[in-house]
């Protein structure tokens, strides 16, 4: 299969691999996917207490090159955004940026789910109700 240059770049030089302290109140963690399906993404955000801006984002992904690239790109986009703006990241933006083929769209969906899941974890920890995801992906 031919991967786009951007996928290969993220796969070869993934941005922001790592782990944040998931017990911290300022850190939201999203773990999505399943090993049997061949993709598991863990995405974490660290939110600045005063400004509400995401000051750090880290990921680890078990999956194909497109899944790794989708989560790597997501962390790049998350940094510097407010939590509300982060919620606006749409999986199709990732598809477009990475030129993902149709069989790999699920990788971008998973990345969006990981973002939402991390934000909800952060919200729950800080006494806010989780955001309902009404978006239909398929």
């Amino acid at each position: 299969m031919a991967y786009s240059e951007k996928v290969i770049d993220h796969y070869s030089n993934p941005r922001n691999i790592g782990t944040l302290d998931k017990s911290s109140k300022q850190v939201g963690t999203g773990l999505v996917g399943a090993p049997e399906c061949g993709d598991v993404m863990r995405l974490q955000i660290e939110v600045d207490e005063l400004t509400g801006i995401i000051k750090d984002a880290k990921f680890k992904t078990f999956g194909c090159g497109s899944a790794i690239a989708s989560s790597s790109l997501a962390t790049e986009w998350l940094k510097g955004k407010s939590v509300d703006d982060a919620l606006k990241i749409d999986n199709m933006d990732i598809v477009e940026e990475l030129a993902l083929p149709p069989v790999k769209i699920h990788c971008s969906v998973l990345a969006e789910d990981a973002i939402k899941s991390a934000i909800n974890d952060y919200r729950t920890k800080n006494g806010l109700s989780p955001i309902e995801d009404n978006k239909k992906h398929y």
Partner: protein
Amino acid sequence: MLNLPIYLDNNATTPMDPRVLEAMLPFFIENFGNAASRNHAFGWKAEEAVDYAREQIAALINADSKEIIITSGATESNNLAIKGVFEMYADKGNHFITVETEHKAVLDTCKHLEKLGAEVTYLQAAEDGLITVEQVAAAIKPNTVLVTVMYANNEIGVIQPIKEITALCKSKGILFHTDATQAVGKIKVDVIADGIDLMSFTGHKMYGPKGVGVLYVRRKNPRVKVTAQMDGGGHERGMRSGTLNVPSIVGMGKACELCRLEMDADTSRLSKMRDRLEKELLTIEESYINGNIEHRLPHVSNMSFKYVEGEGLIMGVKNIAVSSGSACTSASLEPSYVLKALGLDDELAHSSLRFGLSKFTTDEEVDYAINHVKEAVEKLREMSPLWEMFKEGIDLKAIQWAEH
């Protein structure tokens, strides 16, 4: 100087030996005759070349040259053997016994026959990929006509207990066919000593050309016949019609001769090389060899690396050409039914690589492959959340994973 990528997928196909090509070349333009033309020298020359090739092929497997039926490859040979027995021995019975880890050319042929009224028993291989003669014995029925068990498996290289099974079949008057595609030319295969009635193999897995294969059909004790699946001019003792592909048959003959003469030396070198590859890769934590390691082809290794995903791994080892099987169902990588049959899908997450060495593989290439795989696995684990969880002692099976 290493040429990248390095070819380590020799169970898929092998490069041709230059000596094979040399033997073939005169039969394209100079000696182009039809081996079935009886009236002139063009035909005689072609026939002579085919007869000689038949001798070379027969010598490799200790057969008689009259027992060599030329086909287009092992897939056709498997079809001809199984469907041919189904038709030829219809009055004797309609029950077939095979193994669930066979090649698709055998499995799908059996499935096809089931639609035509055959009854097929698919034996389950053990975790190490092997079946036992007791399993075969237990599956035999009064209407069993054929047992078909591959000599050596194409994915994990395990060698089935052929002699024990053929002895059983003989005592029951049941025919035995084997798909020996991966074994012939690599290890000693002797149709007399092994008690084989029908055997499929092909040129391109043994440094010969593609598009030519053989079905060995025993002529004595017992005399075996199969119904032709290709009708026409009655070539190949009426079992396979079609003008003979003279250059490829000459190439197949030459390939068989070279294997007969050089196989032992190649085998001992390759098994050492394979063992070194495995020993080095086993130093990677949570890596495993798939299949029985005692009864196995000398040049094949199938290894699993836990907590890395198959497609990601293949992308990471782009400088070596290997085959990947994954027991999990990633979107575009087909899970290996052979590995699944061995129970490997019980493990949550791993992917496997099949390494197939050839007589042209060098130590330098193996060294490169070892480092390349080590680096790729390490890199992917560095970014694998599952690896991190494993390292923290978290039981992955205890986690409620979200479906997607």
